[in-house]
């Protein structure tokens, strides 16, 4: 049977309901679709307005095309332009995590699927346990570890911890088990292929769909991650965008008037622009990768 990771999900149309039921169902589906996009539209429009206009004008109106530039310039007044550093940090931390997590998980999945190593079952169980135990139970212990080994406030602390990708290893195991027959490996071995070449010359060239799914889940899981960098990276120059956005919440009067007036022009349009930086990449990746999301998640619970 073909793996769900590589299977198309098409099916012939079936009309299953009366016209009235169909109308009501479609009306509800449409209503929920509109409701789903309104918050994002508000956030995309907010930086085009002045702070006062956000309250005074209709929430879903467009302000001024120069609003984004103005909001960005204002953000650069905050803490000597640390915003640029936060954007860069988010990009390079996430890129490193996606690359390391994808490669290590893919290799591990291949080995679990193709090898006869001892402790294979124990290894698979420990991967599943790590996948299912909520990370919160491990965050304080990880902080203690990082403190002891001197990786506190070091981006590599976050990158390495976040690169542990048990869901990815499990997906890779399912993928390689279901899509590459063991006979192929055995034939290659007879032809003199080493185990390392089995991976690089046979498994990797057949792993296009898997790699894109692994990278997708690694990206969406880490671009907006808050808890881990919040705990491991206390210096503001090491913040990622989500941590920086939280920092703006409690150090400017944009959302919290209790902070009092400051000379830094960071108000709601500027906070909304930071929100756009956090949310838009995830939105774009989600919209481009719907099939990867569905196939990846279904494969994670597969029984074929």
């Amino acid at each position, binding site marked *: 049977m073909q793996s769900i990771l590589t299977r198309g*999900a098409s099916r*012939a149309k*079936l009309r299953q309901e009366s016209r009235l*039921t*169909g109308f009501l*169902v479609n009306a509800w589906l*449409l209503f*929920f*679709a509109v409701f*789903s996009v309104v*918050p994002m539209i*508000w*956030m995309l429009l907010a930086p085009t307005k002045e702070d006062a206009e956000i309250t005074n004008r209709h*929430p879903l109106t467009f302000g001024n095309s120069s609003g984004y530039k103005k909001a960005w310039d204002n953000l650069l007044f905050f803490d000597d332009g640390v915003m640029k550093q936060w954007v860069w940090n988010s990009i390079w931390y996430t890129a490193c995590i996606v690359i390391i997590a994808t490669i290590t998980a893919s290799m*591990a999945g*291949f*080995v679990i699927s*193709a*090898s*006869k*190593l001892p402790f294979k*079952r124990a290894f*698979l169980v420990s991967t*599943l346990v790590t996948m*299912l*135990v909520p990370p*919160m139970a*491990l965050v*304080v212990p990880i902080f*203690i*570890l990082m403190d002891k080994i001197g990786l506190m406030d070091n981006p590599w602390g976050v990158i*390495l911890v976040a690169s*542990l990708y*048990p869901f990815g290893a499990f997906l890779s195991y399912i993928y390689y*088990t279901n899509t590459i027959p063991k006979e192929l490996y*055995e034939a290659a071995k007879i032809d003199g292929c*080493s*185990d390392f070449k*089995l*991976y690089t010359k046979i498994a990797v060239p057949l792993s296009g769909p898997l790699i894109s799914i692994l990278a997708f889940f690694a990206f969406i899981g880490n671009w*907006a991650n*808050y*808890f881990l960098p919040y705990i491991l990276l206390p210096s503001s120059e090491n913040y990622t965008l*989500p941590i920086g*956005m*939280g920092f703006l*919440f409690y150090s400017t009067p944009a*959302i*919290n008037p*209790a902070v009092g007036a400051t000379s830094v022009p960071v108000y709601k349009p500027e906070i*909304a622009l930071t929100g756009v930086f*956090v949310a838009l990449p*995830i939105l774009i990746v*989600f919209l481009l990768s*719907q099939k990867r*999301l*569905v196939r990846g*998640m*279904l494969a994670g619970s597969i*029984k074929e």
Partner: protein
Amino acid sequence: MKKATLGSNRAMWVMLTPYLLLLLAFGIIPVIMAIFEVPHESRTNPDGGWDAFKIVLSDFRLLPAVVNVLGFIAIYLPLTIFFVILMSLMLDLNPSKWKKYLRMSYIVPAAISGPVAVLVWYVIFSPTMSPLKDVLSKFGITKSEDVWQTKNLVYLFAIMAFFNIAGSWILIQYGSLQTISYEIIEAARVDGCTPFQLARRIKIPQIKKYIVYMGVLIGAGGLQLFVEPQLLNTGVYVGIAESWSLDQLAFELAFTNGDFGGAAALSLVLLIPTLVGALLVIFKTDMFEETEVSRKKVQE
């Protein structure tokens, strides 16, 4: 012909090592270190020792945090599961090309999480800024403080989490419905099944495994509640959600009170039920039975 021996050599170990190191370093060793951290002396446990467990379990903030998180999950989990199944069944009723745009719309809130969710929901429930201000005024909400009260937080966080995750799961469960064979659906239709009967007797039983899987992942994720209450408490309405969730309490013990022994003890207390839950899911459900986790499969 010579039978090739697969994967028992050094190359396989070399390829496994990077992941194995990460698993050991950040999955297993931190737990061992936490166990050693517990008996250290601290302000709340000046004599040190394993009393740290007793102290943390009798902390006056623990029970409210447990009640908050369980209350949140009790609303969020059934709401999300029911709604996701309903929506995916509705989408599956009469598949047509235009509905792909609806599915794309549903996924939009998936990008609104953490601090972005706090900002967006702060605005949504603000009578002066909200795109839904007319609806709010119909409910008699004239100022944000009518909504943002400690007693309402369990519902507010459930709504935030629901909108963040529902769209992705609608897509996933819609995808799972597409794996049901056309012949089964057609046979049921020929036998006179109404859409409701079709959903109840054919479709839901066919995707039951995926629904359980969704429940497990949503439930485990629900325990992970930190950024929303923390940001709300420190950056929007100061004091509204002090030590509201278990994550916040662990954070506060470690970083505000400097009680790492207590924080480690709390982490271990939380780890045990989640570990038992994970092992039950692995060994007592059929979720992973076709993998080599199952002894049957290993013997095949």
